[in-house]
């Protein structure tokens, strides 16, 4: 034989090492995530030595630092949900339409110009977005709707939505462009229009990737801090009304972290409790998104 395989032991050793290295890398990601979660939860637990679960889930006010403290988490939850929903109402439709345009309609040259510009949106510091919401968008909306308060969830949510458009559009576009040309041809060949092909064949074919984009957008919106801290006001309020000021979980964490808190104070502990809730909420939406994706995959 001219081509003798290399020694089998060496080959096996190499395969073994490569497999172990790959496994370690993947394992590291899991370890880090679990580590962070564990720290959060162990630091959060002492909070419940001084606050009962009934207070935490039963009270509708959140004012742990006041002389008359209340420890109800719901105002922070509603603040987070309202701003997130507003942001998604902006980012998901616009981002998806942009992705369809860029992937299916835009001339390559147009795409080459628009795509980097769009991705630049994601590179602007979030503090800039925060002041943009506070000093431009809110005053603009007040012209049409004078009752709007200077700090409000609407302006913050809208600007946050604009901020996460690139996350939606960029990933969705990649997913749609990965759809084989043969599927588009198959649709067009039997008389479908370009629009029908884009929305009824390309979009569903790319849906798995597009859900990933949406999940990322949700996580981004829930976790976004600067915009809501600056523009939504820092007053916890149990309300779903977007024209009111409110405080999100992230904004609360910033607010208390800025003060000087003794290590064992309730304020210090509350940071970790809110952090843990934030973590759970993001996890919840991630799992929900994954389930939606799985369900879709099963159906098609």
């Amino acid at each position: 034989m001219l081509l003798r395989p290399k020694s089998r032991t060496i080959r096996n050793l190499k395969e073994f090492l490569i497999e172990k290295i790959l496994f370690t890398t993947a394992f590291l990601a899991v370890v880090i995530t679990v580590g962070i979660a564990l720290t959060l939860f162990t630091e959060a637990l002492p909070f419940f030595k001084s606050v009962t679960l009934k207070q935490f889930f039963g009270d509708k006010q959140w004012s742990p630092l006041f002389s008359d403290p209340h420890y109800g988490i719901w105002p922070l939850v509603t603040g987070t949900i309202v701003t997130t929903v507003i942001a998604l109402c902006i980012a998901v439709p616009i981002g998806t339409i942009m992705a369809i345009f860029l992937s299916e309609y835009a001339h390559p040259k147009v795409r080459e110009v628009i795509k980097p510009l769009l991705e630049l949106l994601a590179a602007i510091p979030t503090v800039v977005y925060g002041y943009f919401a506070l000093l431009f968008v809110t005053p603009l909306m007040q012209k049409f709707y004078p009752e709007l308060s200077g700090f409000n969830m609407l302006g913050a949510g809208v600007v946050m939505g604009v901020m996460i458009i690139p996350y939606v559009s960029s990933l969705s576009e990649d997913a749609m462009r990965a759809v084989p040309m043969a599927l588009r041809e198959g649709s067009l060949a039997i008389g479908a229009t370009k629009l029908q092909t884009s929305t009824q064949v390309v979009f569903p074919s790319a849906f798995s990737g597009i859900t990933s984009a949406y999940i990322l957008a949700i996580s981004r919106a829930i976790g976004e801090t600067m915009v809501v801290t600056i523009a939504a006001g820092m007053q916890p309020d149990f309300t779903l009304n977007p024209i009111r000021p409110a405080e999100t979980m992230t904004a609360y964490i910033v607010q208390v972290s800025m003060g000087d808190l003794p290590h064992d104070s309730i304020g210090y502990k509350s940071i970790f409790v809110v952090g843990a809730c934030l973590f759970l909420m993001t996890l919840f939406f991630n799992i929900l998104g994954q389930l939606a994706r799985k369900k879709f995959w099963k159906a098609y």
Partner: protein
Amino acid sequence: MENENAIVNNKELRLEVKNFNFYYGQVHALKNIDLLIERNKAVALIGPSGCGKSTLLRSMNRMHDLYPGNRYEGEMILYPEKLNIVSPKVDPLEVRMKISMVFQKPNPFPKTIFENVAYGLKIRGIKDKDLIAQKVQKSLENVGLWNEVKNRLNQSALGLSGGQQQRLCIARALATDPEIIVFDEPTSALDPIATAKIEELVNVLKKEVTIVIVTHNMQQAARVSDYTAFMYMGELIEFGETKNIFTRPSKKLTEEYITGHFG
């Protein structure tokens, strides 16, 4: 040519390709093609790789419109409408509604089996659920797939075997009652049994619809087609009844190709 006139006079003509040229940008891919395609007959396009079979076929479906820089020249007239399907004035959508295409590799949509076949009807704005169900069943019966899939119509088409997927794609093309279906090497990705089924199918389908089929397989051309066109380097070398082409071709090139003594 008397033969041609006979076809025209009998009003049996379906597609008349007249002095047709095609360009991929600067590449002159088809040169002065003349071809008469009779109604409800199957025409095979044969020839060595790169001779322009797919290019000609895709012109009939205006697929080249999808990519910039392509140019049609000359005429392809669809009868009885007398519609020049390659004219820039004619809407490619209108052409594709009358002439649908089946591809080399099965390309079912990631939808259910039912939705795949119903797709062409739905995009034409047909809303009548009964009519759609009826058409879907008839198309699936026509391609011999109904009994295999009738209990799993709502499952993904991607779960079908390659041969079943290809028949599904044919059903999808059939559902909208096209006048012509063009096939680009529809069996080259399939095993012999699946291939035999498709060939049988083509023989059945041509009772109702005109068929143009590209194939690399001489036996296949002989088995399924009534007429055969032999192409070479962008030109149509010889066109005639399949039995004549395969038994006594009039051109030396054709003979060399079909006997395998090529070049």
